[in-house]
Every structure is written in C-alpha cells, then in structure tokens.
C-alpha cells in the first residue's frame, strides 16, 4: 500500500456512504472516493415507498448527511459517474468517460436494480419501477387521486406502494403469484392478516395471478392475466424483485453467485476488494452458510463493518437481520434468519392489530414478526443474538413478560 492509500467505494448507496463516513470516523487519513451513478448525494431509500411517496417528507430530509458533511471530512464525492469495469490486476476502475481510478482498496456497494417485466407491452411509458428518488417522484406525479393503479408483485415494494397510493385516494389493485402477499417474506399467516388490513382500506387483490400482457393505445390501459381476467388501469407499478448490480465485474475474476461472494470480513476472493450491502452475498458465522439481505439496516451495518475491516480490524459481521415496514397504521418489524422453521407461535390479538408470530425450529427461535409490537422484536433480537432456547408456551402467554427470557 502506498504512503497515503486511496480507498475507493463504488456505489453512493447506504452501504457505500456509511462505509465512507466510518473510514473517517475511525481515523483513516488516506483518500476516500465515493462514486455514485445518481447525481443526488446519498439518501435513505425506505421513505421512497412510504412517507416520501405520500408527499409527506421533504427531499432534503432523506439525505443521510448534508453536502458539506462530506467536504468537511474530505470524502470525495464523484456523483453522476458510472464505472465501466473493475480491473483487479491493475487495481483500477475504468470509468465510462475513459478515466482510470487507482485504488489500494476497493469496496463494491452497487446495490440492486429492479427486475424488469418481460411481457408484451412492457415498454409502455406509464409502467413504473421503484428504486430511486426520481422513480418515486414519477410515481407520485402519475398516480393522482381517483386514478387507477395496478401493482404487479406482492412483496414489500408492492405492498408499501399499495398502502401509500391508497392513502392518496388512488384506486389500487395488487396482482401477485403466491396465495397471499408477503408470504415469502413474513410467512403465510402474517401475510394473510396484513392482506386483510389492506382489503379493509379498499385495496383489491388478485392472488395466485400472473400478468400475461399489458395492452393500450400508446400507454398501459389494461392488464391481462393468465387466468383470462383483465384489469383496467391508468398506471402500472412493478415490484417483482431485484437483481445485483455486478455488470462492471464481468471478466474481473471476482466471484459472484446471486451477488458478490464475500466472507464474514466483507472480503471477496480477490485481495484488496470488498463488497457490502444488497449486492453482497455474505458468509454468516452463525448459520454456517451465505445469506443475502436486501434491507436498509443491513446495508448500513454492513457498510460500517466493511470500513472497519478495510482498516484491518478483523471484526466478523454477524448480524441478526432486521427489517420493518409501515403500511396504513400497521408497523411491522421482523428480526431473524431466513432459515427453515418447523412451527410458529402467536402472541397478542390480530383484531387489535397488536400481535407477534414467532418462528421456531425445535425450541430454538429462528425469527419473529411483530405487528405494532416493537418490544417483542427487541426481545427477539436479543434471544437470537444469544442463540437461546425458549419455551413456546411462555411465548404464547401474554401474562408472561418476554423480558423474563433475557
């Protein structure tokens, strides 16, 4: 490493920005260059499907730090800049404008891109995806009160956009492939209860459905389903998952498999190159395998962990994955591992929108999904970090204070 090493971070994402700031916070004195494709300074994406989409939050508030924060810390922002390829042998990145940037250590935090529809009519102009601030602006602009939006996909993006648009008096229909929305993310029971809340608010659902064609005269007006049904619409929003942004790594020798493969220290197979956030498929010490977490808090913590490891701290990254969602008056918090579970135990009341479902493998807690009950989530996080054994009867018993497990 040269006397004043240069650390380059590819991706002005949550992981990338937290890594850059952490390098400085931890006293790194070399150059820090943060490269971002978007022109906006790093911002938080979770409000894009919620408060920001509902026009209840100003743009500036989404910024992780104000502009001057970076210049004060000599973090060099290269925004609106695109990388063409990473060349590990030369320890260089070739930018799209032909410039070559040398690095002593590279952190790849390029995130994911929305998966695109591939149907007849997919290229019509009023079909939207949601990843960036501009995407959220476009959806808010298009979906005026009284208009009809069809959402393809019953995952978090689909369900949060459904709730936000419905609260703006948009007529909303969600079409999805599973029996209930969010089934894969939070389990069929929790998904069913959440779907019921949406229905009460006036959201229509087309479960176990798949779009076959989008039809219209110059714009999407009608969505045909494989079942033969069709749904009229003014706009279509697509939330069918995302794919890792690894196109600049082709031919680089950096190992990928559904993301960039890294160990618990955020290192790729190539010395001096790390990865963090959505794009990383990381080895988790607790579960003896690799996982891939596409949620905000993982991006934040993984970025911090990567920075510490770039500084040679050698601290394994071993989080209890956490995510949340806000839909209408329901706050959902999930803590746990994406592992097999054999039974689930419920606590609280679904009618009062205050309950938790705990997933167990034997008497070991695997995960908990908590509706309007963040304190249950807190206990769940602590139990999971201790790999604790729990008595299912006590989990169910509202008379028993869960803090008693700790």
């Amino acid at each position, binding site marked *: 490493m040269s006397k004043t090493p240069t650390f380059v971070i590819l991706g002005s994402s949550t992981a990338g920005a937290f890594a850059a700031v952490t390098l400085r916070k931890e006293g790194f004195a070399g150059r820090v260059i943060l490269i971002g494709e978007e022109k906006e300074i790093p911002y*938080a994406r*979770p*409000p894009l499907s919620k408060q920001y989409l509902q026009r209840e939050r100003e743009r500036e*508030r*989404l910024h*992780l*730090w104000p502009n001057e924060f970076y210049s004060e810390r000599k973090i060099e922002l290269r925004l609106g800049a695109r990388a063409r390829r990473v060349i590990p042998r030369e320890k260089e990145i070739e930018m799209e404008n032909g410039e070559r940037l040398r690095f002593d250590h590279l952190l790849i935090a390029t995130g994911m891109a929305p998966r695109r529809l591939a149907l007849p009519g997919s290229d019509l102009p009023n079909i939207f995806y949601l990843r960036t601030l501009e995407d959220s602006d476009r959806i808010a602009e298009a979906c005026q009160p009284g208009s009809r939006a069809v959402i393809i996909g019953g995952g978090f993006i689909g369900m949060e956009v459904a709730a936000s648009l419905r609260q703006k008096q948009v007529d909303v229909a969600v079409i999805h492939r599973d029996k209930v929305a969010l089934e894969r993310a939070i389990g069929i029971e929790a998904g069913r209860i959440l779907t019921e809340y949406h229905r009460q608010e006036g959201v229509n659902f087309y479960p176990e459905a798949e779009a076959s064609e989008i039809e219209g005269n110059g714009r999407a007006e009608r969505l045909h389903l494989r079942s033969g049904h069709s749904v009229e619409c003014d706009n279509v929003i697509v939330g069918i998952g995302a794919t890792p942004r690894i196109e600049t790594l082709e031919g680089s020798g950096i190992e990928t498999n559904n993301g960039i493969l890294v160990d618990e220290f955020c290192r790729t197979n190539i010395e001096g190159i790390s990865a963090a956030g959505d794009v990383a498929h990381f080895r988790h010490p607790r579960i003896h395998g690799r996982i891939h977490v596409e949620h*905000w*808090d993982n991006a*934040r913590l993984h970025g911090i962990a990567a920075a510490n490891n770039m500084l040679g701290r050698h601290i394994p990254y071993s989080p209890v994955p*956490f995510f*949340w969602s*806000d839909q209408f008056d329901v*706050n959902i*918090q999930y803590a746990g591992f994406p592992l097999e579970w054999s039974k689930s135990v419920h606590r609280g009341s679904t009618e009062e929108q205050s309950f938790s479902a705990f997933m167990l493998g034997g008497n070991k807690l695997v995960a908990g999904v908590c509706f309007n009950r*963040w*304190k249950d*989530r*807190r206990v769940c996080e602590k139990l999971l970090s201790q790999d604790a054994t729990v008595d299912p009867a006590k989990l169910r018993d509202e008379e028993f204070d869960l803090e008693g497990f700790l």
Partner: protein
Amino acid sequence: MAKISDLSAHPMKKVRVSGRDIALVHVGEQYYAFDNTCTHKGGPLAKGELSGETVTCPWHGGMFDVRTGDLLHPPPVERLRTYPVRITGEDIEIEFTD
C-alpha cells in the same frame, strides 16, 4: 430553557422553546438537547427510554445517540437534529443556529 433541577428527578424532559419541542437529557456530567420528535413517525422521545447515551422512541423502538443524533436502530432512517447546550449557573440554555 430549563433549570438543572428540572432534570434531577428524571433525566429526560420535554421543553418547548421558540415553538419547538426539544428533549433535554442529563447523562453523567453532560446535558444534551435534541428534537423531541422521532424522525420515523413523530413519537415523543422524552417519553421513551434513556440508557447511557441512547434514547429509544416509545412508539416503534427507534434508537438514536443523544450526543450526535446518529441513528442506532431503525425504523427511523433520518438522523435526529441536536442542539448545543450551555450551562450558566442553574440554567440550561439551548442554542439555535437558525
């Protein structure tokens, strides 16, 4: 503005200054001031829990560092605004920059 004695019984208190709800906390030898309103859904932070330098929102469990406003646990994603505090005799004074 508040008195040091206001924080003797409970180390966290909401005060209203220039039309803003500010939370004042007493940690060790230090006093800190920050917006009382959680950046997630507006939960009243002074009614939450204070543990060391960490405040936890009573509504959804978001956590912040009271010294810097740094986020420590979502669901909030935006940092908390903090204000410099000056002690003059028995008075706690909060400095607004705008």
